[in-house]
């Protein structure tokens, strides 16, 4: 069974700093997808970034980038030039590619606080 672990329950940084959220996962699959979702206080889940395991290049979306280490089963999220609006819960999630199992496996989340 796949598992996703986020070892940092809470982090806080000053505005404009760079912060890295960690995520590790356990799977025997070779083809899969990894996601980072953001949940602000409004409670709505918002996709931040997605990585296909077969791609060696790390995904980036503006200030958000990942460090995907397939052999180490690590998928960290880096937020550059952090902004107050980045304050939220961040969830890492895993999905196996193919088959009939459409389940996203989620980590427990990291609460990120950006301080002014």
């Amino acid at each position, binding site marked *: 069974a796949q598992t996703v672990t986020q070892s940092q329950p809470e982090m806080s940084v000053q505005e404009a700093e760079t912060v890295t959220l960690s995520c590790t996962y356990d799977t025997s699959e070779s083809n899969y997808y990894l996601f980072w979702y953001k949940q602000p206080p409004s409670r*709505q*889940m918002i996709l931040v970034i997605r990585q296909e395991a077969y791609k060696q290049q790390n995904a980036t979306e503006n200030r958000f980038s990942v460090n995907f280490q397939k052999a180490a089963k690590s998928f960290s999220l880096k937020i550059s030039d952090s902004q107050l609006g980045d304050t939220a819960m961040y969830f890492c999630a895993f999905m196996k590619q193919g088959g009939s199992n*459409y*389940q*996203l496996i*989620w*980590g*427990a989340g990291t609460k990120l606080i950006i301080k002014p």
Partner: protein
Amino acid sequence: DAGITQSPRHKVTETGTPVTLRCHQTENHRYMYWYRQDPGHGLRLIHYSYGVKDTDKGEVSDGYSVSRSKTEDFLLTLESATSSQTSVYFCAISEKVVTEAFFGQGTRLTVV
């Protein structure tokens, strides 16, 4: 924003009563999901649907049933609510399995 609406947004109910939560989408997406969110657990899949009348169980399906009679509606029913089902419930939709999933704003359910 994706057109996905959950109702009700908040509900308090008594143990043993039936409860139905509704998820309505206007995106014509094929896949719909029900999750529950509890502290320390992230999101856990309850049931999902891959088409009208096509549903399957997730990892925490006991005590829940679903129905999808129309593409746009996905209902989650707690046949006899228990205190352990107090949670925040999220509906999500996606066009394909591994495209972005869009989430509703959640329903906070309290079983007393």
